[in-house]
């Protein structure tokens, strides 16, 4: 066994262990903050797996999108609302846990079945893409995957416009849900320094 393959196997087992333990921690830990940080660790390890598969662009995109944007946003939201109060005890917690565990186990068995029945190995020379993977992804995005790509970008644009409308409610004079006129005073904070108001 050559050194390169040994290194790959060690990396793979460490990454898979981190993913499994981290994912269990995300679900099972009581503290929501720990769960959020562990989720970041899981995303990073998945990026590591992509790297092992020579998909360096996908790995970097995974880090940028999932760790740098999604996970940061989750942590941000948790920290902005994180009041240290005890949650109300849920009455039928036991049956809920049993139901959710069984659903998760069913999903897991489904995934294992897919894993075992699917033929994973590719016979084409595409196995040796390596550093060209970025170019290949670009070619695919602008040829056979053009429609999903464009639809996804339209979806993102819609989300962005929605966010802008929500953030800048001064462009709308009426509240969308109630139909009442919006109190502009509350929305437009004065951008002048506080001291000038005292004169």
């Amino acid at each position, binding site marked *: 066994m*050559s*050194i*390169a393959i040994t290194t790959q196997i060690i990396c793979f087992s460490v990454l898979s262990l981190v993913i499994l333990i981290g994912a269990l921690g995300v679900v099972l830990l009581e503290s929501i*903050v720990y769960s959020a*940080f562990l989720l*970041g660790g899981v995303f*990073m390890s998945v990026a590591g797996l992509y790297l092992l598969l020579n998909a*360096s*662009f996908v790995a*970097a*995109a995974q*880090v*940028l999108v999932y*760790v*740098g*944007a999604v*996970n*940061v946003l989750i*942590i*941000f939201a948790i*920290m*902005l609302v*994180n009041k240290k109060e005890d949650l109300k005890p849920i009455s039928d917690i036991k049956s809920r846990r049993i139901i959710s565990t069984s659903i998760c186990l069913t999903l897991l068995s489904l995934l294992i079945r897919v894993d075992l029945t699917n033929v994973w190995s590719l016979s084409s020379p595409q196995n040796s893409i*390596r*550093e*060209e*993977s*970025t170019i290949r992804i670009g070619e695919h995005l602008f040829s056979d995957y053009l429609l999903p790509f464009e639809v996804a970008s339209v979806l993102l644009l819609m989300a962005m416009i929605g966010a802008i409308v929500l953030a800048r409610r001064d462009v709308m004079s009426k509240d969308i849900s109630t139909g009442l006129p919006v109190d502009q005073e509350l929305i437009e904070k004065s*951008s002048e320094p506080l001291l000038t108001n005292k004169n």
Partner: protein
Amino acid sequence: MEYGLDLEYSFNEFLKGFGLSSEIAHIIWLPIPMLLVLVAAVVGVLVTVWLERKISAAAQQRIGPEYAGALGVLQPIADGLKLLVKEDIIPAKADGILFTAGPILVLVPVILSWLIVPFGQNLLISNVGIGIFLWIALSSIQPIGLLMSGYASNNKYSLLGGLRAAAQSISYEIPLALSVLAIVLMTNSLSTVDIVNQQSGAGILSWNIWRQPVGFIVFWICALAECERLPFDLPEAEEELVAGYQTEYAGMKFALFYLGSYINLILSALLVSILYLGGWGFPVPVELIAKFLNLPINAPFIQVFTASIGIVMTVLKAYLLVFIAILLRWTTPRVRIDQLLDLGWKFLLPISLANLLITAGLKLAFPQFFGG
């Protein structure tokens, strides 16, 4: 374009001369450039700290460090030693694990990003295909470390500082990435080596700064904001937040933040010089000089000379930018948090988007100037 010194190849050949297999030679080679770059980064930090002390002193008409070595050059080492031997304190109500992991998460991505900084054609740790994109991805991890240390300190100033730091780096990452994208569009490659080679045609005239003046300014502002340098040092604004997310940190953990911010500053300066100022390129192309002096470009002497000129030029350009950053820090007032976010989202983002669009249009119209 395969020219220049290939130290890895020569080193491996040298080891094979002793009867070692190529795999073992490769393993012995691997840590050498990494250690070299790490040492270079730390020495760079020491130099920058000294410069910061001296330039701030000059800006405030003081003398600055004077007794530790000639002109106080040993002062940064004394600072480092002091931090090294200080007691490591974890506050009683703090979260120990996150408190320790925070500074590490801030420092590691910054050091990893040095992977892609080229000092010459083959003088970099790894010419990975995704190149500059790796840096953008890695720098997006940093906010997690800042949030983590801000939260774990269990201190309202720390939490506010951490939240501010994360908000700041998220909002400045986007214009940063967009201005890099314009460069990548012109180069047709993400690799930093290709980006420098694309600028090497006509010396100083072919540097990207002339073709991407808007991108250069946007990138520099965003890089300063990512480094949390004044005028954008809101996360650690002393008058408002004590020291932001660093408030509770002491000893080596504080030193990690300190080291991280300075390594990040040098890294940003190096990347600005690589992306916009021709990287290791001399203002007059070395090939022209060699032709003028009737010297063969592939002679070993010329190769070594070119490589050393390359390293000197990269470091010189980077430190010129570090000098500008230090001058800015000691001469400009701090912006407010709402001004900062306004600048990022309402000014830099549309401008960098327009810059990208115009670059794409110019590339179609003048492919010979803007990369075909």
